[in-house]
């Protein structure tokens, strides 16, 4: 299979599926829609596995805009990064499609759900394949749309509507910066949008590129702008608020979009354009700082959450923070490696949490669960594997990738390393807490008491994913997955990093065991963490003051000025002039005669005295 064909199939098949379901979904019925969507996901998976074998390539699928010096194509790059990512997206996508067949069995709007899933697969593949900023941005927006549709799937639920709107708008704020970054690069490079062309223009190789001679501030603006896009999509502080709320969507969606793939798109994109970031020292520091901060900040919030999906959501934020930090530390490969392993174990955890929620009749509070280890053994076992991988227990995939990032931090920046290590400890703590409370002890509610194992169509994906969660860190696997693994430099400090990371796991898990084993309610009560540092509340005030209040004021001023000054003032003047003129037009003959006489004298004066002088 040529890379051109592969790229077209993987991109177009889900689009056709989504379009078909949009137009005919209602006519052909749920079953056909489901089959088409799952079928297209399966075919895409097969094609992307086949793509793992092809050589690097790039090309144009179709031209989108071609005016003057603007050339925006729908093109593709096939290289190690995109092959690996394509595998992740289609593999987890397929599993989520299959899992959804079980999880969404009783939903009323399954056609819409599967249509949106196909739409997501299309958009995400576009991001992975994109070879220029225009295409990247377009698909970037489209994943935003599919995320909006899927979070708001249960649109009768007010929380779901608000969450989907919040996700879209928060991402829009990030995209505001992203677009400024793209425009700056476009202007500074004299009209380039392609990654390859921009890289060339920046390197100042054989043809001295205009970007090479651009002043430093231009590149900094570009890099920070582009990073803002990633801050939105990958939910980094301060735009992280949408991701936890996005858990209002169906759980399989959380696994696919809000854990494994879409939220990682920010990291993927940053690695793709790392040459731009590398050109600006300031941007690099900023990115590493934001990533490190988010990792720690989100882990602190995760410690005090009670909703099983929210714990995982904050954990996702925190892990994304790791990846972003790695990009900022110029260790993009370590970031991508963690992206791969994280995709497997986090999808596993989310699907596992879905099975738990399914088992407990839509109960999501871990304090109302308990004792599930015996009632749902497969879910329990796979969830524990996922947890162990996330905590970074030695030998599992998460351990290797997290250590690469810790290593990069250790070499570069002391306080980032401290933050990252402390995050690792917290991760181990809150995940152990989650497992202990949800799966051990006694059932704390009726729903938990009557829990039953999910059907095979849901547990099979869990088992498959656990294999990957365990093994994807090993060279044998990661080579075949075309994962980007950094060339390990086992220099000085390696053992220190490893020691610290193992210690963090042990201390965190130990603390959690000590605190939570056998407890029926949370012995810790940290309001600040439980309420997520009150960030959402602060934002609500900001929106109220700087948007709604400002809109109110501007609206009032607008009606005073635009209506008053532009319309009513001239109208009033006209009225006044009319009134004055009416006084002259009094109907008194003497008045008219006087005016006539005066006019006549004026005219004669003008003709006789003024005109001859000119």
């Amino acid at each position, binding site marked *: 299979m040529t890379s051109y064909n592969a790229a077209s199939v993987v991109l177009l098949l889900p689009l056709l599926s989504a379009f078909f379901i949009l137009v005919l979904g209602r006519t052909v019925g749920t079953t056909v829609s489901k089959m088409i969507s799952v079928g297209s996901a399966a075919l895409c998976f097969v094609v992307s596995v086949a793509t793992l074998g092809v050589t690097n390539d790039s090309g144009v699928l179709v031209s989108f805009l071609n005016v003057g010096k603007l050339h925006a194509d729908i093109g593709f790059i096939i290289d190690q990064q995109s092959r690996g990512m394509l595998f992740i997206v289609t593999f987890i996508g397929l599993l989520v499609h299959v899992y959804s067949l079980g999880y969404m069995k009783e939903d009323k709007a399954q056609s819409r759900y599967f249509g949106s899933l196909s739409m997501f697969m299309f958009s995400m593949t576009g991001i992975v394949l994109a070879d220029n900023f225009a295409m990247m*941005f377009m698909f970037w927006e489209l994943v935003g749309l599919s995320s909006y549709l899927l979070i*708001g799937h249960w*649109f*009768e639920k007010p929380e779901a509507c608000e969450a989907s709107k919040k996700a879209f708008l928060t991402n829009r704020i990030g995209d505001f910066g992203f677009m*400024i970054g793209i425009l700056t690069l476009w202007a500074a490079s004299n009209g380039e949008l392609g990654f390859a062309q921009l890289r060339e223009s920046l390197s100042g190789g054989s043809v001295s590129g205009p970007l090479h001679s651009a002043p430093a501030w231009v590149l900094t603006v570009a890099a920070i702008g582009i990073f803002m896009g990633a801050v939105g999509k990958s939910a980094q502080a301060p735009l992280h608020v949408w991701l936890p709320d996005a858990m209002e969507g169906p759980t399989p969606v959380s696994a696919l979009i809000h854990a494994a793939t879409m939220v990682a798109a920010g990291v993927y994109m940053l690695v793709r354009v790392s040459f731009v970031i590398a050109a600006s020292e300031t941007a690099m520091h900023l990115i590493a700082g934001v990533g490190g901060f988010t990792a720690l900040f989100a882990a602190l919030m995760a410690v005090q959450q009670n909703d099983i999906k929210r714990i995982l959501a904050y954990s996702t934020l925190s892990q994304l923070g790791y990846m972003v930090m790695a990009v900022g530390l110029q260790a993009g490969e370590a970031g991508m490696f963690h992206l791969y392993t994280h995709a497997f174990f986090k999808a596993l955890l989310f699907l596992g949490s879905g099975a738990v929620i399914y088992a407990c009749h839509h109960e999501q509070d871990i304090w109302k669960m308990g004792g599930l280890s015996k009632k749902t053994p497969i879910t329990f076992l796979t969830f524990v594997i996922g947890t162990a991988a996330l905590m970074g227990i030695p030998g599992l995939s998460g351990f290797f990738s997290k250590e690469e990032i810790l290593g990069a931090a250790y070499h570069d920046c002391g306080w980032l390393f401290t933050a990252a290590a402390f995050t690792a400890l917290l991760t181990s703590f809150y995940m152990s807490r989650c497992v202990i409370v949800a799966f051990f002890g006694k059932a704390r509610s009726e729903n938990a008491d009557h829990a039953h194992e999910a059907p095979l169509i849901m547990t099979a994906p869990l088992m498959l994913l656990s294999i990957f969660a365990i093994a994807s860190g090993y060279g044998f696997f990661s080579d075949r997955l075309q994962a980007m693994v950094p060339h390990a430099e086992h220099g000085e400090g390696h053992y220190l990093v490893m020691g610290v990371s193992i210690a963090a796991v042990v201390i965190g898990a130990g603390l959690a065991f000590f605190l939570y084993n056998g407890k029926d309610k949370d012995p810790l009560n940290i309001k600040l963490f439980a309420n997520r540092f009150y960030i959402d509340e602060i934002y609500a005030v900001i929106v109220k003051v700087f948007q709604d209040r400002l809109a*109110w004021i501007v609206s009032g001023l607008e*009606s005073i000025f635009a209506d008053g000054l532009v*319309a009513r003032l001239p109208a009033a003047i006209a009225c006044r002039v009319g009134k004055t003129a009416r006084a002259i037009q009094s109907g008194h003959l003497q008045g008219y005669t006087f005016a006539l006489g005066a006019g006549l004298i004026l005219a004669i004066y003008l003709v006789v005295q003024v005109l001859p002088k000119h």
Partner: protein
Amino acid sequence: MGLLELLIFIPLLAAALIGAGLPGKVIARSAAALNLLLVLAAISQFNAGNTLAHSYPILDNPAIAFAVKADGLSLTMALLTSLVLIAANCQIGEGKPAIYYVSSLLIAGGAMGAFLCTDIFFLYGFHELALIPTLLMIAIHGHGDATNRRAIAWKITVYLGVGSLILLAGLAALVVALKPASGLTFDLAALMQSAKDHPLPAATQAWIFTALLVGFGTLVSLFPFHSWAAPAYATAPTPVAMLHSGVLKKFGLYGLIRIALPLLPLGAKHECVQQALLWMLIGNIIVIGLVTIHQQKLDTLLGNSSVMHMGYIFLGIAAGTQVAINGAIILMFAHGISIALLFALCGRMRNQLGTLEFSKLGGLAANAPFLTVMFAFGTFASIGLPGLANFAGEVMVFLGAFDSNINDGFKLIHWATILGLWGVVMSAVYMLRAYRNLFFGKAASGHFMSDPVITQRVSLVLLAGVLLVVGCCPGLITGLLKDLTIAAP
């Protein structure tokens, strides 16, 4: 009689026939459908390389001729006109008086004439022809109580009247200033030649350009001459609101691109004029954007959003680069289609629900999935989602406006672009808020909406389909525009 003349006269003739007592619905719909077919025929002729032009001289001195000519720009606008005409006709309910059909045909015919004529005299005249039924319809059949709608009809009449007057003065000054040796002429091609041979001094160009900008600008609701637009659209009967906001309003932009930019290139680039235009369009985007966020009713929200979106097209015109102008034209087309779609839906909702206030509505999606999808097309088009037509236009305007040397720092046009990008965020805020309040959540009691029957869906699907097709293949329009000469060399 060529294709182009037919395009102008079929709607006018149909209006006359309906006025004479023939059945409105049948004649209006067949005229509209025929018009669309003829526009498509004209486009294929144009793409095949045929020149579509006719000229019927009327006066020798000053030279006035009924001259029509098609190029990419005018064909794009003609296509927009015929599409919106079809949709607008389909929104006229059973039992409405014939004047609804007559007025919409007159507006469309006038707009066609304005877009296809190359003689300034006729170009201006056709626009006035289209304007009069708009004003009358708002006064006679507008929504709301009689005093209110008459007040609003007066307001828009005065505004647009004054705007047209300033425009007339500007055009007269232009024609006189560019008078060739052979005597006064209103023919655009002759004026263009004259402008090329004897360029006017920059100061004169700047003055005339300013007059044209204010005149055309008022017609397009350029800030701060915009306050007629939102109440007018909220009051106008649905087909009139669709045709005016979708089509007729674009006349001002068309005029700037067709007349002002090529004939007065130095005026457009004049420092003061450019700065003033940039500040005004920032007003459109930011000030009106905030005003739109404040709206509590769908009709005024759409009216204000349509004022706001004009800012992006003005940004394209202010930038004046090829990419930006192409973007502005795509955006004119796209905005016309998307706002017509939204006003059509808004009209249906007003009829069925009796109110458009967000606080009283909700959960409409449960019973009206089709309308929900259609509204989503309008919403996401107007917030610039890729794949729908507006995105291509917006992104080209932004790229075109940013396309200058930035190594010495951002200039006003760059800042205007950045503010425009923030405007995209604001559009998303108010459109998604409206969408969520109307369609999602729990159904509000007492307000029920159902989907229309299949036959009434066709026109809405047509508009949504056009948004999708042009959004996915903007090349369909930029292909028409590749030979467009904007600025005289």
